[in-house]
């Protein structure tokens, strides 16, 4: 914070305080938080769709759950990617980890009759190992994590294809749905919560019916719960624990952090393990949801996660960002990705639309942040 250069104290209160402390209003403080720019972007995108998709089903309960589910899945990996990026590193292997984790869950369960919980634990163990290797390679070799994890992007994707073709002769493994009932661990990743509440709301006539005459929303998909929970935990860790400070310090200035006693290497290894963990959570949710695993799952998700984190106000250089911002970034991405189906735009232009909306959101978010910084 800049020292107050004004020779005349603004108020009597300020006089009593340390003269070097400047009184900052709540709003200015709020506006300089990284996620506030993202919030502005979210409001902008929301406003756009309220106008462009007015009269459509986008903001009915069904439409909201529809885009929230897409946002939630991205948000789960974006949260971990945000922590890692704040810690100064990238993980490009997330998308491939999703594909591999799905295969590691589906093949033991479907082909070898493992209980689903054991298969899920296998996937999580392998993910932890991959994260550990990623972190150690980055630490030991001093190579940019961009390069190390780029290597793992190919290695993990290739492993997913190689393993599944070797063991099953195909790249898509179905039939997981049959194994879910009765598995307590799988239940954590499948189904919907608050179904009773929604059934009651439908019986009260508060929820409309859809094209197939069903209540449009039967519950909140469990992926949304995971998303909110992970975002909350990550935010708490970042803001309220010493470990959170270590993450900021590691990403801000590695040497300074190390000199002041932060275990930088351990922090980074644990962050890589967390991104691999979140990719596996993503894979679990998707495998339980679709009932199948496919080696192609998760392709380009690593880039989408980085986009969400950047929209969320994190710096690509590390040391600055937030988990809530990443969640908002994922929300923007989900809204834009699903929103086009409500606007009636010819979907040939899908990717142009997606790219333009994302750029506008980031530019607006940057503009807002700059304004906020100037005001200070």
């Amino acid at each position, binding site marked *: 914070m800049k020292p107050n250069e004004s020779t005349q104290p603004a108020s009597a209160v300020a006089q009593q305080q340390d003269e070097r402390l400047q009184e900052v209003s709540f709003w200015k403080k709020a506006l300089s938080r990284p996620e506030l720019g993202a919030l502005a972007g979210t409001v902008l995108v929301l406003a756009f769709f309220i106008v462009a998709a007015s009269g459509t089903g986008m903001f009915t309960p069904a439409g909201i759950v529809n885009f929230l589910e897409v946002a939630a899945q991205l948000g789960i990996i974006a949260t971990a990617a945000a922590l890692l990026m704040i810690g100064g590193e990238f993980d490009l292997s997330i998308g491939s980890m999703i594909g591999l984790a799905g295969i590691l869950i589906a093949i033991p369960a479907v082909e070898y009759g493992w209980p689903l919980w054991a298969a899920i634990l296998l996937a999580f163990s392998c993910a932890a190992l991959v994260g550990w290797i990623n972190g150690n390679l980055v630490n030991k070799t001093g190579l940019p994590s961009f390069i190390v994890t780029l290597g793992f992007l190919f290695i993990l994707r290739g492993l997913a294809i190689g393993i599944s073709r070797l063991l099953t002769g*195909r*790249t898509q493994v*179905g039939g997981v749905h049959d194994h879910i009932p009765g598995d307590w661990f799988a239940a954590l990743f499948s189904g919907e919560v608050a179904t009773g509440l929604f059934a009651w709301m439908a019986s009260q006539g508060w929820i409309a019916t859809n094209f197939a005459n069903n209540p449009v929303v039967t519950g909140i998909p469990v992926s949304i719960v995971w998303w909110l929970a992970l975002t909350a935990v990550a935010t708490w860790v970042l803001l309220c624990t010493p470990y959170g400070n270590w993450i900021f310090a590691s990403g801000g200035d590695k040497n300074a952090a190390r000199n002041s006693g932060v275990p930088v290497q351990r922090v980074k290894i644990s962050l890589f393990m967390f991104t691999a963990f979140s990719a596996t959570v993503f894979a679990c949710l998707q495998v339980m949801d679709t009932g199948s695993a*496919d080696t192609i*799952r998760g392709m380009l998700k690593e880039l989408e996660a980085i986009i969400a984190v950047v929209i969320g106000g994190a710096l690509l250089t590390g040391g600055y960002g937030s988990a809530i911002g990443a969640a908002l970034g994922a929300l923007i991405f989900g809204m834009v990705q*699903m929103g086009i*189906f409500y606007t*009636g735009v010819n979907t040939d232009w899908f990717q142009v639309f997606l790219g333009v909306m994302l750029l506008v959101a980031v530019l607006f978010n940057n503009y807002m942040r700059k304004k906020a910084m100037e005001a200070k």
Partner: protein
Amino acid sequence: MYNLQKCQYGTNIPIRHARTHLPHNDNHEDLTMARLSQWLLASTSAVALVAGTAQAQDTAQTQEGNRFVMVTHGVPSDPFWSVVKNGAEEAAEVVGAELEYRAPSSFDMAKMQQLVDAAVASNPDGLIVSFTDEDALGGVVQRAADNGIPVISINSGGDVAQNYGTRLHIGQSEYEAGKQAAERMQEMGVEKGLCVNHEQGNQGLDQRCDGFLEGFDGNAEQLATTYDPTSIRNAIVAYLNENSDVRGILTLGALAAEPMLQAMREQGATDMFTLGTFDLSPGILESLEQGGLDFAIDQQQYLQGYLPVMFLDQYVKNGLLPAGNVATGPGFVTQENAAQVIELSEQGIR
């Protein structure tokens, strides 16, 4: 047997085969036999063994057998091409010809060009080529024709291959297949259709959608999605909520068919819609049998292997050749013949 399989799988498998503008788009969508492909590989090798012995006997008895070379772009581990190869080998056995099957270890047109080059240099009695890339293959195929080697193109390139001296094309017109899907849906009472394209820019998939839209006289729309299953499913639900008059949905591969079927199951709306897809997979065959899915379009690739060998043999022996291209697809698989297809896929024929 297990070791052999290991060797086959050990070859380069392209990370994203479908990206490569393959009309049949097989890596994910054409997993005709999927779970059975292990068996298939074994059976292929068994056939190869039998063919090998038969061939040895042949050469001892007659020196007359023609030698044909087949070069395709299908990587060795690809189940789609195992079926093509099965067809070709069985035909070669029937006519007593010697068949050499060659394919690059990864989807690479430069490698394939070298293979065709080598095949032409070996001066076979006939050449069979999947004509995937006009620029890479046109020159060498023309040279084969100039040297008096009869060439038949299969699977892809039906529209351009004959500019380079090929005699005949055997395959499926993607555009025509999409159009027939639309006509079939209209016969089933659909007035407005939807084509779910999970990979816009893939030439083969785009042609399927174009044909479908044309078949509906514009009374259908294309829905572009990513290949993420959750996005596909939610996009379909969102679209149907906005467009309640759509009653027919076509997906372009198993990758998108399964999320579509899931959306229908979850909404309990399977009976409200006429559902069709390209390509077969275990899940698709099961849905067909149970009546959830109304039809699946299959290009009967067994014939893409079997017929060119037969035709070339007739041409070399008797100068006979069909006068026009042969369409092996679209073949429609429905509830009525699903059981038979499942059985044939176990034998490596579908």
